[in-house]
């Protein structure tokens, strides 16, 4: 059985969700190739070629692949699937965008956001905001799977696979890229960060969010996250949302400040190793999953925490 992994990248760097997806792929088969679809992404392909256990790397480049258009990815991947029994894609918003198109074109189910591989046709995936884990067995000849990266360890570097350039598909006729506004990150990326500091509705304004959450994150070398309420209110960019329908994170340390702990938020962070909650309401549901809870007004607690970290040599 041969497995294709579609790399997650931004044309410049390979994201570690790719290495994690390779780990999942290697549980299906030893014959794993990586597809890098993008524009000016040779460096990404070279990085992918270094992942241990990878047979070869396919590189396809065009403007539309660089823009991540789902129609282009479908047109590229569907014919390639003649040579593969499964295709695995990291469950990022990009992967979630195009992967189901591939499944539909192959007339197979998509197995969404798997967190474990039981065998080559049986997988475990969360449903109902992570309140249940479903074990499903696929009867389809080819498997189309998205992978929750936080559930798998990154495959190590040390390989030296060949990079093979393949032809890109024709540009889609009916979809046109207009523009893209990406947030410049000066901090670690949310999905892969070791520590995440998240703020909620309690912040009350974007200024307060920046004044309270960001310095603490910087002191800890952490990524910044937010609840939906904080994002909806414009305190933080949409890309910061942690939860059922935002990003799923599983850092070593997750610090939730002024977040109540709604089911949908917990779905995105409850697999973190250590959870800290700071909330003035002792009954807030977030305390049910917190390893360490501090019942306090964040306005006093966060400055105290900054001072305590300084005192501890941080």
């Amino acid at each position, binding site marked *: 059985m041969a497995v294709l992994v579609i790399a997650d990248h931004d044309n410049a760097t390979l994201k570690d969700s790719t290495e994690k997806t390779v780990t999942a792929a290697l549980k299906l088969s030893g014959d794993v190739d990586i597809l890098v679809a993008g524009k000016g992404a040779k460096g990404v392909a070279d990085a992918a070629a270094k992942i241990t256990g990878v047979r070869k790397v396919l590189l396809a480049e065009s403007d539309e692949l660089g823009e991540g258009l789902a129609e282009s990815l479908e047109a590229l991947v569907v014919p390639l699937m003649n040579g593969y029994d499964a295709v695995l894609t990291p469950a990022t*918003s990009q992967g979630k965008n195009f992967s189901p198109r591939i499944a*539909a074109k192959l007339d197979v189910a998509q197995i969404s956001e798997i967190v474990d591989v039981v065998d080559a046709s049986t997988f475990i995936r969360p*449903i109902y905001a992570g309140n249940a884990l*479903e074990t499903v067995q696929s009867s389809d000849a080819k498997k189309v799977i998205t992978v929750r990266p936080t559930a798998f360890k990154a495959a190590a570097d040390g390989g030296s696979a060949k990079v093979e350039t393949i032809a890109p598909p024709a540009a889609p006729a009916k979809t046109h890229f207009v523009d893209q506004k990406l947030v410049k990150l000066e901090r670690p990326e949310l999905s892969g960060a070791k520590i995440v500091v998240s703020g909620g509705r309690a912040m009350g304004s974007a200024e307060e969010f920046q004044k309270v959450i960001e310095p603490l994150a910087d002191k*800890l070398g952490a990524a910044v996250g937010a609840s939906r309420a904080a994002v909806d209110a414009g305190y933080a960019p949409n890309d910061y949302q942690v939860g059922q329908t935002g990003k799923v994170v599983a850092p070593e340390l997750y610090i939730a400040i002024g977040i109540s702990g709604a089911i949908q938020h917990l779905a995105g962070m409850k697999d973190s190793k250590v959870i800290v909650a700071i909330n003035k309401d002792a009954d807030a549901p977030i305390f049910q999953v917190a390893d360490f*809870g501090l019942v306090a007004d964040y306005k006093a607690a966060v400055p105290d925490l900054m001072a305590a970290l300084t005192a501890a040599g941080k």
Partner: protein
Amino acid sequence: MKVLVPVKRVIDYNVKARVKSDESGIDLANVKMSMNPFCEIAVEEAVRQKEKGVVTEVVAVSIGPAQAGETLRTALAVGADRAILVQTSEDLEPLAIAKVLKAIIALENPDVVIMGKQAIDGDNNATGQMLAALLDWPQATFASALELAPGKATVTREVDGGLQTLAVDLPAIVTADLRLNEPRYASLPNIMKAKKKELVIKELAELGVDTAPRLKVLKVAEPPKRGGGIKVETATDLVANLKTAGVL
């Protein structure tokens, strides 16, 4: 311009799902059910586009048991013009739903389909993209802004790292993200009026679509529980505990 809005009846988003003790599925007996929140956003968007005068007709469609008719009544109460229920007692997978929707689209010929990005029960986030592929239509998923013009939709999408804007030729599939709009509540007079709007029921078998499941659910289990935590009194205590836990 005609809009089709597929809506799904799911467990209410405020209810915590409970696993059945025999691990065969989720216990939905006596559980509050509602319209999937992302579908509410999709309906709201279609209705707003109609209020702006861009859209002339909003048709809601649901595939599910007879009770999904209530979900369609909700869509009618917030402004959909008419509704179609494709009745089935089976729980269909996204690929099957997409095929059924394709059959409905062949009958209705909408200019645009606005649907939810994800149903909060199965958390698949797949049906819209599958439908677009089956129809060979362009797609604009995870929409946070939508502008409709004759023959064209301009859609701002929530993507990794920020926002992307696409222009797609119609007909197209748009899937709604949380920030597309804030759905309204149905007023009592509108709930009453909705009872008189057209709701057509079709049996799934009438459509002649292959809806055979591709996945067999072997088990539905509870996720591992987190060990109980402790309350700390001060920030200094907290830091000491985090050091002991080895995460600082």
